């Protein structure tokens, strides 16, 4: 039986992890490769690297990070952040990443999804969606530029369009819940999950193991992503998986 996936997310800036793991015996907690290995031993099913570098040099450094990670890790990983062209995708995937994630660039030019999907196959292309509930619109709207700019897309319609263009997976972040640690946005996740036929990764709001159970079991989403609760050791991937197993969720 296909298992539900737990995915830690690492923010990488100029080749270094920001918000690195606290209180862990790592030689260098800012080294993305060291942290990737740590999460692998914890039982992480996949990893996401989000490149938040501001400079060209930082992006070049990310290619080295990808190469080193692929050389030492035997689990899949996705790279997002700053991927604007098919050439950007090629650079990251050829360095050994399994998938690339696009967000703002895909909203600015949706054909990017199709170009990537035609070239590498849908399974390589993740479309990340940042959504916030809008009272005015009565639904979740999509935002770009890390949540700064509101678009005219609803989360559900954009997810459907992304899949039509060739997205193989949707990484759905609730901006309302992000950082709140009060649980994933169950309604948003369900709405998007029911609207598309590709796997959906829920993101934003994880505070404890029960939150993972809720979104993976009740919503039946395919995967759940978290950053800070793993980095700050509020819980661990191993603890979350052990809890899920006890509750009858199929995990690796």
């Amino acid at each position, binding site marked *: *039986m*296909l*298992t*539900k*996936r737990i995915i830690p997310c690492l923010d990488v800036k100029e080749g270094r992890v920001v918000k690195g793991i606290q209180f862990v015996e790592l030689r260098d907690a800012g080294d993305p490769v060291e942290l990737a290995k740590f999460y*692998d031993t914890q039982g992480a*099913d996949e990893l996401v690297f989000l490149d938040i570098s501001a400079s060209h040099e930082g992006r070049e450094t990310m290619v080295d990070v990808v*190469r080193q990670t*692929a*050389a*030492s890790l*035997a*689990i*899949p990983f996705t790279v997002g952040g700053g991927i604007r062209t098919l050439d950007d995708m090629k650079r990251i*995937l*050829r*360095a*050994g990443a*399994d998938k690339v994630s696009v967000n703002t660039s895909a909203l600015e030019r949706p054909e990017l999804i199709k170009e990537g999907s035609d*070239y*590498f*196959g*849908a*399974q*390589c292309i993740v479309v990340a969606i940042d959504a916030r509930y809008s009272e005015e619109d009565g639904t979740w709207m999509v935002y770009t530029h890390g949540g700064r700019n509101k678009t005219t897309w609803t989360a559900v319609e954009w997810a459907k369009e992304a899949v039509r263009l060739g997205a*193989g*997976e949707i990484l759905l972040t609730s901006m309302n819940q992000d950082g709140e640690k009060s649980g994933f946005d169950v309604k948003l996740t369900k709405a998007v999950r029911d609207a598309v*036929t*590709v*796997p959906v990764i829920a993101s934003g709001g994880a505070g404890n193991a029960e939150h993972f159970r809720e979104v993976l079991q009740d919503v039946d989403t*395919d*995967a759940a992503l978290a950053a800070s609760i793993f980095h700050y050791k509020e819980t661990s991937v191993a603890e979350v998986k052990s809890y899920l197993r006890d509750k009858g969720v199929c995990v*690796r």
Partner: protein
Amino acid sequence: MKIGVIDYGMGNLFSVEQALKRLGVEVLVTADQQQLAAADAVVLPGVGAFPDAMKRLEETKLVDFIYAQKEANKPLLGICLGMQLLFEHSVEVAPTKGLGIFTGTIERFNGVSRIPHMGWNDVALQNEPQWLQNATLPEARHVYFVHSFYATNIDEQQLVAYADYEGVRVPGIVSNGSFTGMQFHPEKSGELGVALLQSWLEGVKRTC
């Protein structure tokens, strides 16, 4: 021991190369037939679409090389699309003839809730090819799959291991003589993936 990874321009070869190197073998990534023929075994990787991949193999005359490899009873491991190419036929994009080394056709998943079949699924062993005999595998039975098409109408004798995806029986490992196919990515499948690659390499060692 030297392993040739067939480079025909389809997908990410770096992870496969690195996984093999970690197991202590010499790895050569090339499209050069002479160099591939000199290797103890070859790996046929691949991501992308079936018709593009067949076209590339034909254009580069690697089809002939693969048949010669079979004729000479030399080991080949096809991974993901590389395994699918070894079947008779695929419906991906447009109906396309495959290499026909394994019996069966490649069809799109039907009646499942999510496509691609993406993530960690457990595999059950059905037959033991030579390279798996006496192998010590870890208790973990999960491997990483990512694909929208799968092999069906297969020859049960060629099936080594399969996964269950919402009631669809998905061939995970197939074997026919010196040729092996893995639908999942052993290079991305943690401990079990490493153990399977290692067993396959030991099988190669015994034959060379």
